[in-house]
């Protein structure tokens, strides 16, 4: 008798101790806040709003997923809020973009968030295509060998995503003057059309819609793509423009050798942070495993959903979205940049653009 009571109590305890774990991965009746550290209507906001209804559909218990915009300080304010205020209960998640990752990599003293602690749920890549004015006599990237005419590029700032084009151009031996002060890639493209600058790049969706017509009219010559990451972490050709070389190939065409050294290492790390895994969803570091798994499974199911694939085709450039481990592996390449390469880049920024990062 005593024994059976003991067993019953044990069973009850066991039951209750199991419940919190299984309840943790059930979000019925809950509201999940997805912090986006940018304004409504921006690229990251649109990205989150495209994903949100699908998380609602695939997370256990079908919770409401609400996008919460927390703009400011170039996304640092939202990131710091996530680091300092958010409980690891799976009810608040964070969406980062390249502009969030860059200040983190450049060790901006205002940054309090730390991606190394967090659990990644999924990541979305994007691509970029560089192009040039036709009147410079360049027909393809091969003509850039020894090209010495002065070029101008419309930039948002030396510590923005423009690190990727500026460093790529420099590695290829181009003399590109960065004109700072443009408000975004859109105004950069208009400046290119106006002739205010003569070399530019656009992210793939904008490229398809706005630059391909220019190429058809003979007002722009495509040079190269930055490339995309394959499963093994190599940079390969971008499926948007499969006929164009990706950046490492372009380098090889010009210099007859593969790029290496600190410049390329730094370029690659920032390329992955800015394009390869440009946007990612994060859970706080202490989040219990079952919640993390629930999120990652939901993300995998979303990516497999044919309805969502249409959204990807139409609005996210058609790039292969990465869930769970795949995203983690890709982002690890960002986190594992050798300090020496990072130092090299910081030094390069200080030397070329008089940027003081500390």
């Amino acid at each position, binding site marked *: 008798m005593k024994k059976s009571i003991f067993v019953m109590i044990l069973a009850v305890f066991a039951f209750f101790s199991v419940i919190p774990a299984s309840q943790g991965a059930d979000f019925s009746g809950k509201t999940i806040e997805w912090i986006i550290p940018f*304004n*409504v*209507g*921006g*690229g990251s*906001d*649109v990205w989150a*709003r*495209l994903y949100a*209804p699908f998380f609602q559909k695939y997370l256990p218990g079908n919770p409401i997923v609400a*996008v919460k*915009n927390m*703009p*400011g*300080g*170039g996304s*640092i*304010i939202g990131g*710091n809020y996530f680091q300092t205020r958010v409980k690891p209960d799976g009810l608040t998640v964070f969406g980062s973009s390249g502009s969030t990752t860059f200040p983190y990599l450049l060790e901006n003293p*205002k940054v309090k968030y730390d991606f190394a602690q967090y659990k990644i749920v999924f990541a979305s890549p994007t691509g970029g295509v560089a192009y040039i004015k036709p009147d410079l006599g360049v027909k393809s990237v091969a003509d850039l060998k020894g090209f010495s005419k002065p070029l*101008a590029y419309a930039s948002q*700032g*030396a*510590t*923005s995503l423009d690190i990727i084009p500026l460093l790529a151009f420099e590695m290829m031996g181009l003399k590109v*003057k960065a*004109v*700072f*002060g*443009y*408000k*975004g890639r*859109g*105004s950069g*493209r*208009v*400046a290119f*059309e*106006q002739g*205010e*600058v003569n070399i530019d790049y656009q992210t793939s*969706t*904008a490229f*398809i*819609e*706005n630059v391909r*017509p220019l190429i058809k009219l003979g007002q722009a010559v495509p040079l190269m793509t930055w490339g995309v990451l394959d499963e093994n972490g190599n940079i390969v050709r971008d499926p948007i423009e499969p006929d164009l070389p990706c950046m490492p190939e372009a380098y090889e065409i010009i210099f007859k050798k593969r790029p290496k050294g600190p410049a390329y290492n730094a370029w690659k790390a920032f390329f992955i942070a800015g394009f390869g895994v440009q946007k990612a969803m994060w859970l706080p570091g202490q989040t219990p495993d079952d919640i993390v798994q629930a999120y990652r499974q939901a993300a995998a199911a979303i990516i497999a959903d044919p309805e969502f694939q249409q*959204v990807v085709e*139409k*609005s996210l450039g058609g790039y292969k979205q990465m869930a769970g481990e795949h995203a983690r592996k890709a982002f690890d390449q960002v986190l594992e940049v050798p300090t020496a390469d990072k130092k090299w880049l910081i030094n390069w920024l200080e030397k070329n653009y008089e*940027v003081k990062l500390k």
Partner: protein
Amino acid sequence: MEVVFQSLAVVLQPHHLLMLICGVFMGLAIGILPGLGGIVGMTILLPVIYGMDPHSAFGLLIGMVAVIPTSDTFPSVMMGIPGSSASQATIMDGYPLAKKGEAARALGAAFSASLIGGLFGALVLTVIIPIARPIVLAFGSPELFMLALLGMSMVGVLSGKKPIRGILAAGMGVMLGALGDAPAVPEYRYTFGIDYLMDGIPLVVVGLGLFAFPEIVDLLIKGRAISEVTTLGRGWWDGVKDTFSHKFIVLRCSIIGVIVGFLPGLGGSVVDWIAYGHVIQTSKDREKFGQGDIRGVIAPESANNAKEGGGLIPTFLFGIPGSGSMAVFLGGLLILGIQPGPSMVTENVGLIYTAIWSLALANVLGASLSIALSKPITRLTLIPFSFLAPFMVLIITFACYQATRSWGDLIALLLMGVVGWVMKQYGWPRPAALIGYVLSDNLETYLFISVQRYGLDWLKRPGVMVLAGIIFVSLAMGIFFQTKRTAATSGGEHGKKAS
């Protein structure tokens, strides 16, 4: 041409019409609430449009944004508080009219001017869409800098008899605008380690602080109703007649509105001031401006509605928003799966005409509803202000808190409010400070880009020279009429003394 009427048929379908009406009602409400403008409206509607068909979504979004500059006139005229950034200049003469008990007349003029301006904007959009690309491309950074300078040149006429104060106030505004992240270098200015200041002080806070706060304080000190007379005087129909007797002002200011709207990067928040400055500059009899001249209401109101039509052009054709609300609208396009770009004119031309028809219909609906509402609402000006003040304080703090949703908004509002009140007490022109603040970023960015790119050669560009000529003429006209007037008045006084 066929597409134009096909789109009209689409817009007139019950479902789309319903969406449009929802949008219009929402826009009217947002316009009436001080400090809330197109950005807030777009932000609220953006989550709703997910999964909608683009035509219905356009009805909703454009219906909303088109009528904000119509209904935002209510608080501007009746309480001297900007209903949104588009109606700041309307205060200058609209509010004195309300004090004289002529609120209904001011509103009638404002709404009819808004209607004509809005329809004009839609019309221009129709005509200009096929040829808009080269026009937008003609304005490079140097030209945009000159346009910002043209905006600054309005400071002169807006600061009345003490131009030096106007220039100082404008300079102060420019400094205020320089707070936070610098437009062209990765640096933060004057943030004193406070996170709130990293993005500068938001426009809503500056606008409400400078204009609404001092007004509330003064009305409370005087302890009476807004209207200084107890009868409401002439009705809205007189206002409509005023608009028609000043039809050329309406036309000129609508053109100004469209141009400011479709030039990306100039920002819509100065269009009302530019129109207001323009009408003073081109008027020979200026004594009554600032004391309740109906032309001072008609000019900004026709321009601010026309601006919305213009603002759609860069958003559709280049994917670059001309104003804050258009930036959110652009996100809405992407959510709907529409990539703005040159193909909008070829493949999605039906959508563009849907936008235009929605714009036109919304303006008609918005203006009629506002006129219908104006009679009961004008009675508010007869209520002792101590009853209204708590609501007004609540609404403006709420509106400011919307800006970044941090404590900083409220503290900044209080500080800006005190600055505004002191300026008002000592007769320093607040519009000049506001124009400086709004144009600060443009002035710096475009000058910076021009000099980086062209050295001093940017001065030799034909567009720059033409705009320099316009600035010179407008300044000269201002000074010429000013001296003529001073001569006339002093002559008059002299004559009186002699007699």
